């Protein structure tokens, strides 16, 4: 490994030396901050992922020291490896900013405006993406595409209308489980994730598709509608698990464990895969050794400061307004079906993780 030559790459005027074979995206992640292109389909832990969503497009203004010609088209930074002396423009390229705005618009085109009732709201990569890179309003005036609801078993909920076809769940099932039993059916704008996902649920690790899904297309049925993520507080915990590393994140309110997920790093990627048993069946504090509050470093409503001081108004309008450009029509009032989202209680005034007693 020590023999891998180092290549120098410059991204938005910041230079870094990286091992040959590194992609532009990963080089940008090493630099960090704004020069890192957003990635909706690439997942460093999933082989062959990436290249599909096109949100990570960048401009290569200089190919390499040897061949300084710029690349004629924008390239997917997650699938393009750096060359020595390469110069890349991300947010410093008006072409990239414009193209990305277009991509966000395409991704949102048929995406339902159901953020108010979607379990992913608050930790949705698409919400964050559109907040940072999208336009104020949609120009789409047609009926959004819908799919028939498919029941895929007791643990995972599939909401195909929200899927952005990143293929991550397919790679996850392919690479983490012995036998992949779901995939993509149909093509074009009616392509869908389908078939026997429920059968693969027997597999110990299939629950991870929930964590890799960037949107609310695959969510945890054992958590659904019990709570909004921003009302629960994440803590890192572990347990002695015979199947997986047992390193997980618990989403708690008071002493109650509402949800168990894998821990995610600053790029929103799972650090260690966890097994179904830890995820779906260990919902009591006594199952776990609690390490302490999780660091949430990614831009999301969980950490964006919207967490505090929002109380009294509905919790999300500022964000939703930015995301979809207009006030959504609520298809149902969350307060009428759940008594845990009491808007009059100021969470920031509660000391430590909120507890159901606080809402009595």
């Amino acid at each position, binding site marked *: 490994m020590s023999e891998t030559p180092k290549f120098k790459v410059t991204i938005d005027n910041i230079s870094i030396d990286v091992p040959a074979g590194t992609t532009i995206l990963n080089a940008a992640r090493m630099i960090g901050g704004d020069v890192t292109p957003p990635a909706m389909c690439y997942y460093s832990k999933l082989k062959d992922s990436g*290249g*599909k*969503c*096109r*949100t990570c*497009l960048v401009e290569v203004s200089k190919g390499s020291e040897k061949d300084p010609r710029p690349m004629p*088209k*924008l390239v*997917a930074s997650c*699938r393009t490896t750096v060359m020595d002396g390469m110069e890349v423009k991300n947010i410093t390229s008006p072409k990239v900013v*414009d*193209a990305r705005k*277009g*991509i966000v*618009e*395409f*991704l949102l*085109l*048929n995406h339902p405006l159901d953020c108010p009732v979607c379990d992913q709201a608050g930790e949705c990569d698409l919400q964050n993406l559109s907040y940072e890179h999208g336009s104020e309003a949609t*120009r*789409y005036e*047609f009926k959004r595409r819908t799919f028939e609801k498919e029941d895929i078993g007791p643990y995972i909920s599939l909401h195909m209308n929200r899927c*952005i*076809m990143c*293929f991550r769940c397919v790679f996850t099932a392919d690479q983490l489980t012995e036998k992949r039993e779901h*995939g*993509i059916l*149909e*093509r*074009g*704008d*009616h*392509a869908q994730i389908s078939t026997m996902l429920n059968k693969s649920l027997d597999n110990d690790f299939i629950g991870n598709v929930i964590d890799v899904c960037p949107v609310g297309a695959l969510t945890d049925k054992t958590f659904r509608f019990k709570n909004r993520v921003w009302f629960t507080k994440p803590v890192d915990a572990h347990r002695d698990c015979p199947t997986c590393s047992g390193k997980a994140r618990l989403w708690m309110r008071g002493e109650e464990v509402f949800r168990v997920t894998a821990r995610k790093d600053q790029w929103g990627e799972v650090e260690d895969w966890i097994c179904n048993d830890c995820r779906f069946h260990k919902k009591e504090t006594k199952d776990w050794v609690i390490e302490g509050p999780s660091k949430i470093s990614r831009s999301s409503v969980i950490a964006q400061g919207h967490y505090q001081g929002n109380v009294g108004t509905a919790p999300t309008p500022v964000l939703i307004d930015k995301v979809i450009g207009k006030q959504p029509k609520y298809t149902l009032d969350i307060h009428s079906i759940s008594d845990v989202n009491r808007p009059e209680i100021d969470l920031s005034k509660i000391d430590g993780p909120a507890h159901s007693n606080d809402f009595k």
Partner: protein
Amino acid sequence: MAKKILLENDHIEGIRYYDTYRKNGGYRAAEKAFKMSPADIVEEVKKSGLRGRGGAGFPTGMKWSFLAKPEGVPRHLVCNADESEPGTFKDRYLMEFHPHLFIEGLLISSFALGSNATYVYIRGEYAWIPDILEQAIAEAKNNGWLGKNILGSGFDCEIYVHRGAGAYICGEETALIESLEGKRGNPRMKPPFPAIQGVWMRPTVVNNVETLAAVVPIINLGGDEYAKIGVGKSTGTKLLSVCGNVNKPGVYEIDMTCTVEEFIYSDEYCGGIPKGRKLKACIPGGSSVPILPANLLLKTAKGEARYMNYESLSDGGFATGSMMGSGGFIVLDDAQCVVRHTMTLARFYNHESCGQCSPCREGTGWMYKILKNLEYGKGKMSDIDLLWDIQRRIEGNTICPLGDAAAWPVAAAIRHFRDEFEWHVNNPEESQTRNFGLAHYADPIHVPASA
């Protein structure tokens, strides 16, 4: 009379059977080729200047020389017979009526590239052609042209015909490879290119049917002689499939020296426009290439006559030119509506997108819906700019060129026929009962005198 080298024996009854083909000089090129070294055959193809006939026009000899040859790894030749581009039906003609010419080309090319197992990936809708090909393959095999130790050379070759299942995207070479492997026909990300890792990750060359058939006359004539046919970098002959408003639609072989005007109006080719109507527009190279109004079709922006070859058809770039593409020549007379026509194409690309990447998956459907509104009198002026913006953001930002192929026809239609779109918006009712007509689309273009 233009030179014919592919369809030279078109008039001979029974040319599709082995005996007749052989009696008329068939497999002579193969005999010659097996006395040459594979490298020399590649050299002849390079000298011939042959450019891929599948659409992109990439020099075939160069493509062949890129093929990786790692020790102990089989290599494959895959023939792209998916021919699904609207307006293109020339490969079908070759395979249906000249199967042995095609097989001879496959054989010589397989020998040159060292492919012991060669595949023909044929579109599913050509349901009857695999039988024709398989019969011809059996005949060739019975006569020692396929199988083990061909002509005592020590070279073995089998040709397999593989049917597609009806997807345009499987004509894109990497989607074709995926499909051939039995997977979903999604285009692959490049690199790696097929020449390094193609089918089953082995080095692979993908060529169009006509490209491979052209190898036969190249070996017969020699690369240098072949290169003398045609002009400039458009060497040899090209098959064109003509459809739309012409008196004689069909497949024609041209030597790329005639003008577009001659091609449309002469009796040797299309025989003019029927019912005394006038030429309004034309898509010269299959549905993906830019549409041109009559004036820019017959003359370039510089006022020179436009010729039926790669360079001249693309003269002026996308601003005022088009492309030779796959040779699907679609002619529209003054009774045709460009808005409707563009809508039809948009529907096609929407239907055929594989759905892998977001701009193409979402953008093609959006364009189709807007075009539908415009065509049916429900469009707004801002829709035209919106369409422009959508196509602009698809083009160049996708995994495979289908995104571009969906964007270009829309871009060209707006570029050249914007007033026809605007007329639809301004006359929502009238546009439902009559068409815009010829308007000024055939008027001579003003060419500013050069300084």
